């Protein structure tokens, strides 16, 4: 299969995903919920309600609304945000990049810590250190991230005063949220690195390498590492998608970080439909994009894979 054909296939799948999810959310929000109840105070008169319903176009038949939505969505126009009163796209571009960067930092931290830890655990497999590291990585996965955030904030920002408690502005504002978000991917990655490494060490090629005099630690670093990259990258990609798809919201809320997760939470709570649709669209696209990048990276690390 050629590279071009492969990308085209992937693109088709992306469009399918985005379409299905967008329609799903559209139907869900229009059928079950009523934004007028949320946008207007309880004291609003019937006339006011009807007027707003008309303004928002909610009085027209559902299928017509959906048609219009898809038509404009195809040109990346999701309409004005109801709460911010400006194009939804604009709002997204205010919030998405900063979160993407934050989560990228978190992933970088996770990779830098998890790989050495996973390799050490695999090297010392069966030892007390290995067991300790295994439980430690489990702790990283199990503790609620927003709680870790609160604890780190309490200790480093409130008690020690080393870092700002919340908000945004300097690079220092990035440290605590990034570290907090990094815990879960770090645990996931350390576990997969350790597991895959021990699997690799039982492979025949590992025996060959040892038989020619390769030290155990070099066997891990030079031989096995390259072979576990595909599964590690899959894990990193997955975790990145999950964080950007709303998992980081709680941490962003804790630190008052004006990012995409925060925006998602606010949007859903205020039932800002156009903005919500835009968010759904972008998360779905990004997830597919990252999966594509992951697949391309596969080929870079595993010479057997060619598209």
């Amino acid at each position: 299969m050629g590279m071009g054909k492969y990308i085209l296939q992937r693109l088709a799948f992306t469009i399918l995903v985005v379409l299905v999810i967008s329609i799903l959310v559209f139907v869900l929000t229009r059928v079950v919920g009523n934004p007028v109840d949320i946008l207007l105070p309880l004291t609003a008169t019937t006339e006011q309600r009807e007027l707003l319903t008309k303004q928002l176009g909610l009085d027209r038949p559902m299928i017509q609304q959906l048609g219009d939505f898809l038509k404009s969505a195809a040109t990346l126009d999701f309409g004005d945000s109801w709460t911010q009163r400006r194009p939804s796209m604009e709002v997204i571009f205010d919030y998405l990049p900063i979160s993407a960067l934050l989560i990228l930092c978190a992933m970088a931290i996770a990779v830098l810590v998890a790989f050495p830890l996973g390799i050490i655990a695999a090297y010392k497999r069966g030892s007390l250190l290995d067991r300790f590291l295994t439980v430690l990585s489990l702790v990283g996965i199990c503790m609620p991230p927003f709680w870790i955030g609160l604890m780190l904030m309490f200790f480093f920002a409130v008690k020690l005063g080393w870092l700002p408690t919340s908000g945004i502005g300097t690079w220092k504002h990035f440290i605590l949220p990034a570290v907090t978000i990094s815990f879960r991917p770090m645990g996931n990655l350390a576990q997969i690195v350790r597991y895959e490494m021990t699997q690799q060490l039982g492979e025949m090629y590992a025996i060959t390498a040892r038989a020619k005099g390769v030290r155990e630690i070099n066997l891990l670093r030079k031989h096995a590492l390259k072979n576990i990259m595909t599964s590690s990258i899959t894990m990193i990609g997955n975790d990145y998608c999950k964080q950007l798809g709303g998992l980081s919201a709680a941490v962003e809320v804790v630190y008052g970080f004006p990012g995409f997760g925060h925006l998602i939470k606010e949007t859903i709570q205020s039932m800002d439909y156009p903005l919500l649709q835009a968010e759904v669209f972008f998360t779905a696209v990004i997830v597919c994009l990252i999966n594509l990048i992951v697949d391309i990276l596969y080929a870079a690390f595993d010479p057997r894979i060619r598209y």
Partner: protein
Amino acid sequence: MVEAAQDILKVNGLSTSFLLREGEIKAVDNVSFSLKKGEVLALVGESGSGKTVACLSLLRLIRWPPGKIKSGEVILDGQNLFDIPLKDMHKIRGLGIAMILQEPMSSLNPSIIIGRQIQEAVELNQGLSGEEAKKKAIEMLELVRIPSPEKRYYNYPHQLSGGMKQRIMIAMALSCKPKVLIADEPTKSLDVTIQAQILRLMQALRNDIDTTILFVTSDLGIVAEMADRVAIMYAGQVIEICDVFKLFTNPAHPYTKGIMKSIMALKTGERLNIISGDPPNLMALPTGCTFHPRCDYCQEKCRTEVPQYDDISGEGTHMVRCHFPLGVDKTQAEGKGK
């Protein structure tokens, strides 16, 4: 056979077990043999008889858990390998003993170009580096008759055929310039024509570079072609060692005789006379002689008493683990030994 040469490798009472939840598997049980400089010793036995485990034990490549070397000594050039701390074993591996594995398809690292993998062996064991090592690696590819070695250097394992990969394995093992080379069924998973090519290559190389080889196989045809002496393994034990000629003319152990008969039958067109029964369960080995349930000559003593590993030639060239070795009156042989 080089009579005067000293033993370069001596294995004494080697025992390796796998300790599983269900019990202990004695994969290698009290195995002793030795190799003189420059000779080829064939280690023969059916699959599951512990040949590979014995080889891996020599290099201390048994993974714990579940595998464990329980006792014995491996003396390479006067040095007991089991006295060396495990973390220093990498100095012995390669330069002291190198190994060709039986499964070329999976024995090369799939994500590293083959040239680099050979070069690594060169760098680790010949003290060369950089361009020099690369040149040497390409030389090695040439040595094992790989066409256009400069190009092949950059190939990944999946781009090569099985026979080519086994050549690479041989080149890699030889790049270590080992004192002893272990070839663990190097032709097992290859088809017949490729097998012949690899064997021819190994024979040629054996004459070119003067190495001591421990050649593991289950194919007696290969034994006749390659080996000076033969050790027969059964159920984790070496049951007979002698030189090739003696093995084919005068086997002393009933098991050896059984396998000899089965290949002779092929030649003479007699009815194939296979050894009756199944290979033993290593977790519940028979009492006494492990071969007794399948032995045509079994007697009461065989069921209860473990046979000693005896010299029946009187000069240490023919060892047998049997109460009643064929063609020998044991009491006489013992008298001669004294």
